[in-house]
């Protein structure tokens, strides 16, 4: 069953798209990661133009995060004040990122930049996950907790301090805006929510309690991916709504199964497989950048 994607301008098997959404959904449900950094490279591999893949994936993350954010909102696990600061930074980052996206697109370097970012991030995330899961496996028998929440002293020294009731913090607003800004750029260039960066940043840099971290990050992701979707639609005409919807169908159902699988199986032990998958994808994209291409010349549509 083929479906013609109107913006990507290619025809893809509908079951392949729902299936990809489903598999990534299962993985994200199992391991509590957003699917963006897995989904976007997979879309490259099946031949979706990178520009369309990134913009449509941002829109998909918006839908997927929204349902999660509602659940956290009900349980009041969202620090709205902190979230608003992150959103402010995120929107600025998104505007900046979409502009960079447009410039690189016109220069013909967009694919290179996106792939380069992915090599970097998949490499780093894959390595961290790989070593963390190995460490978790070896520490498991000794029952030692490895994570410690720590405050960085330099964060305390910054001006523009604000009080955050929900997180029970009195810190400067500058690092939150910067973190938001950075994640906003990533969202617009790579088509990711950025949960895997913002969650550790909230814990280790801002020192927020783990209880509110996931909810607040989802809260900020829906706004930032929303703005990113809008800007990509207006500036780059690269949001394929049919593609986003098909991925959402697979992703939402997959995530439900993933959560259940994650509860039954020991997901921490399977995390090493995810790490290997991420590293394999990183390797594939790296090779594409370094191996002599078959086609030296490329024609790109001039809009």
């Amino acid at each position, binding site marked *: 069953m083929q*479906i013609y994607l109107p913006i990507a301008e290619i025809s893809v098997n509908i079951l392949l798209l729902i299936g990809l959404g489903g598999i990534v959904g299962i993985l994200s449900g199992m391991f509590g990661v957003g699917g963006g950094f897995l989904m976007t490279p997979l879309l490259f591999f099946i031949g979706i133009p990178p520009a369309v893949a990134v913009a449509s994936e941002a829109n998909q993350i918006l839908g997927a995060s929204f349902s999660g954010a509602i659940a956290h909102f009900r349980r009041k696990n969202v620090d709205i004040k902190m979230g608003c600061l992150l959103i402010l930074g995120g929107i600025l980052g998104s505007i900046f990122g979409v502009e960079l996206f447009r410039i690189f697109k016109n220069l013909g370097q967009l694919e290179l930049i996106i792939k380069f970012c992915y090599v970097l991030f998949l490499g780093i995330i894959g390595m961290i996950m790989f070593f963390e899961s190995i460490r978790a496996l070896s520490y498991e028998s000794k029952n030692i907790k490895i994570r410690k929440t720590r405050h960085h002293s330099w964060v305390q020294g910054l001006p523009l301090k604000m009080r955050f009731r929900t997180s029970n913090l009195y810190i400067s607003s500058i690092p939150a805006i910067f973190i938001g800004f950075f994640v906003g750029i990533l969202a617009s260039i790579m088509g990711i929510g950025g949960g895997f960066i913002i969650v550790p940043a909230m814990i280790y840099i801002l020192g927020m309690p783990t209880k509110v971290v996931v909810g607040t990050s989802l809260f900020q992701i829906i706004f930032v991916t929303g703005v990113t979707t809008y800007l990509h639609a207006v500036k780059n005409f690269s949001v394929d709504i049919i593609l986003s919807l098909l991925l959402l169908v697979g992703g939402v159902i997959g995530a439900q199964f993933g959560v259940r699988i994650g509860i039954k199986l020991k997901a921490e032990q399977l995390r090493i497989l995810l790490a290997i998958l991420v590293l394999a994808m990183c390797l594939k994209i790296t090779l594409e950048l370094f191996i002599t291409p078959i086609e030296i010349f490329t*024609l790109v549509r001039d809009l």
Partner: protein
Amino acid sequence: MKLLFKLIIILLFYNLSFISSYASEIPPSLVTDLSKKVISINVNFSGSKFHIFGAIKKNNPQISSIDQPPFDILIEVIGPPIAMNLFQKEKKYGFWINRKIDNLKNVPSFYSISGTKPLDILLPKNFQTFYDIGLIKQINSNNQKIDDKLIDQIVFIGKNKKQYNENNTPITLLENTLFSNEIDFPTNLQEGNYKVKIHLIRFQKVLATKQDIIYVKKIGIQNWINYLAFQEPQLYGIMSILIAISFGFVASLVFRKKI
């Protein structure tokens, strides 16, 4: 006597007309049609096919040399022109970087040529230029001064993407009169008018050219999405956001109780 006179006049007239037709023979013409006038790209579009069929019509009442075989047919299908940037990959700092070489204003988005024999056998290169036939001519006529090597590259890329086809299915000419040809359209098809040019060739000379048009358009939801995305991008952006959010909302309602 009157009868004889009439007969002579008729004979004379007949003879005259015969001679005059011999002196300026009317070349044969083409009668052609397409199996489709419109190709619609809808949600389940996965490429399309259409047929071109026709006949050679002889225009002289008597047997004349120009109506004699060998006849050859060439069929060109030329897609709407699009603007393209040509990039060349160069190795820099260890990895491959695109370098813009040229901005091409009018590259045919689709080109297919098929014939009873390959183009280069039917017409020599200088004749192709003269008659405006062939892919290279198509690319060159719209953009001045393109390097031959670059044209080769453009042709190579187009063929890889199945947008350019040369000598795909050979046409058979039945009884030196009837012919038909099937054209395969790929999935990555541009919207617009596709020119169909049918040439009748005899001894390296184009005797007749018939031009027809097939229109490719997006219909239904495809057309609607395309229109919104490019004509009303603000509205389309907001719509995308709302669709994604409402999907997420419905999903949270459906799956809330089950976990």
